[in-house]
């Protein structure tokens, strides 16, 4: 699907489609549909006055974030807790990683403690695939690897869009199936080059039958688009009038996007969703943003507060979608913690007493 000239393919081949969630491509259309439907059931759990279910009792989920995050980490940890799983959170800044422990040794150490799922974010593309290859029994969830992918974000974007369209149609979201994306026009704007969100979105929206276009300064588009199922929109003002969804991306200063544009003001002038541009949007068009939002840069403050901006809703939905991801991986046959589980060699005593 993606050409070899692109950073996406710099990541190694997927190790497994069942055990891990490393790329949206692992899921395909039916896999995405399953996540969205299960997430609807968890969204109902979230609306309860007591939003907790005993589903994953006895499972242990660890978040390993080698790169900073607010919402993704909180969202995964909240999701795991609402499923009654135990949550360990490795603060990389205060861990032995600082002493020079390698990624592989860190993973082995964490896994030796009887962890069932590793939620990994890393600054290097492909890091999660590597972790998945090392993991003996833990399920690995990619929570963002470099420029490569951020599958849970793309899934919650899909979930949020279907929810909005279902509300307008006055029907339950699950009854819409997955066909509601067919023929929808989705425009991704901003720093596509450095964006793992964009890569996951393109894979998801394309698998669901939407037509995807991208827009941004030439320096922030991927070096090659060969094999990408997208078209490039040269004129943002014109493109905005023709789309159902605008997906805004953040200018990623930490990945050096700043050096790719002359100035943030100039970026806003040409590619920001200003009030003037927002008024060009087709009626009913909505705007998504993965956060954190830089008001005044990629989106004007007053546009960020419009009802068509779904950012806050995306954050809310993130928990239900991540509950679905964890449930589908950790609730699959063969994961019952009451069954005797293989204990890694050399850690028999530690594991035995830790799990009591």
């Amino acid at each position: 699907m993606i050409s070899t000239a692109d950073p996406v393919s710099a990541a190694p081949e997927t190790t497994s489609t069942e055990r891990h969630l490393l790329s949206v491509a692992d899921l395909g259309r039916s896999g995405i549909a399953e996540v969205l439907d299960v997430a609807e059931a968890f969204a109902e759990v979230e609306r309860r006055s007591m939003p907790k279910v005993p589903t994953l009792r006895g499972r242990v989920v660890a978040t390993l974030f080698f790169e900073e995050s607010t919402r993704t980490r909180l969202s995964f940890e909240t999701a795991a807790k609402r499923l009654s799983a135990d949550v360990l959170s490795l603060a990389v800044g205060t861990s032995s990683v600082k002493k020079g422990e390698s990624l592989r040794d860190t993973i082995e150490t964490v896994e030796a403690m009887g962890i069932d799922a590793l939620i990994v974010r890393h600054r290097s593309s492909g890091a999660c695939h590597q972790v998945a290859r090392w993991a003996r029994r833990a399920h690995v969830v990619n929570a963002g690897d470099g420029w490569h992918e951020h599958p849970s974000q793309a899934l919650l974007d899909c979930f949020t869009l279907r929810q909005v369209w279902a509300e307008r149609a006055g029907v339950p979201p699950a009854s819409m199936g997955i066909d509601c994306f067919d023929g929808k026009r989705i425009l991704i704007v901003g720093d596509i080059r450095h964006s793992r969100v964009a890569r996951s979105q393109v894979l998801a929206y394309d698998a669901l039958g939407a037509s995807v276009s991208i827009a941004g300064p030439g320096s922030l588009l991927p070096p090659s688009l060969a094999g990408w199922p997208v078209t490039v929109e040269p004129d943002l003002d014109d493109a905005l009038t023709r789309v159902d969804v605008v997906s805004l991306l953040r200018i990623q200063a930490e990945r050096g996007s700043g050096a790719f544009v002359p100035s943030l003001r100039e970026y806003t002038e040409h590619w920001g969703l200003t009030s003037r541009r927002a008024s060009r949007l087709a009626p009913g068009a909505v705007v998504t943003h993965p956060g954190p939002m830089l008001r005044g840069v990629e989106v004007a403050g007053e546009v960020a507060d419009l009802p068509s901006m779904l950012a806050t809703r995306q954050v809310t939905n993130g928990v239900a979608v991540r509950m679905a991801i964890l449930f589908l991986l950790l609730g699959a046959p063969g994961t019952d913690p009451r069954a005797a589980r293989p204990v890694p060699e050399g850690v028999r005593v530690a594991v035995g007493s830790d799990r009591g």
Partner: protein
Amino acid sequence: MAERERSHTRPLGGVFVPRSVVLSAADVQRALTRMSHEIAERNGGLDDVVLVGLQTGGVPLARRMAVVLGDVEGREVPLGTLDVAFYRDDIGLRPVLPEAVTDIPVDLTGKVVVLVDDVLFTGRTVRAALNALGEFGRARSIQLAVMIDRGHRELPIRPDYVGKNLPTSRQEMVDVGEDGVAIGTLSDR
């Protein structure tokens, strides 16, 4: 629900082959009417009564029961639906997926909840449902209404209202549908 679940999910999936019809559509309606009267009689009317249908087989039955109760007592009964997937005791042993979104429209604290299902078999679905209902408030009591009790209980659970007691073997399958109740077997696709 147990029946349906087994028929539609891997690895026990297959096609239901009916052997004989046990209840006609009219029989099912008569049984529903009788059970509705029993519910009203036992609870001295419908004060605080809430019907909850188990996804998926119990939902249409609960809906029909609500209609009968509305005719008999001249008032509407709150009606909810419950999916017990997240409370099952076989998560991690076999594929478990929610069939539909749970919808409990009222706080159950102090209510008399009548759980409605199509077939009562091992009792494990009902056990899961009892745990699930606890999340929506502390009901005054929970009662169980089933169209078919086919035996083979694995837990200490019994129904309060029964459409028909139907002796079965474990290998057989019971299907409750629009056009009545049939007994048969599951064959490989």
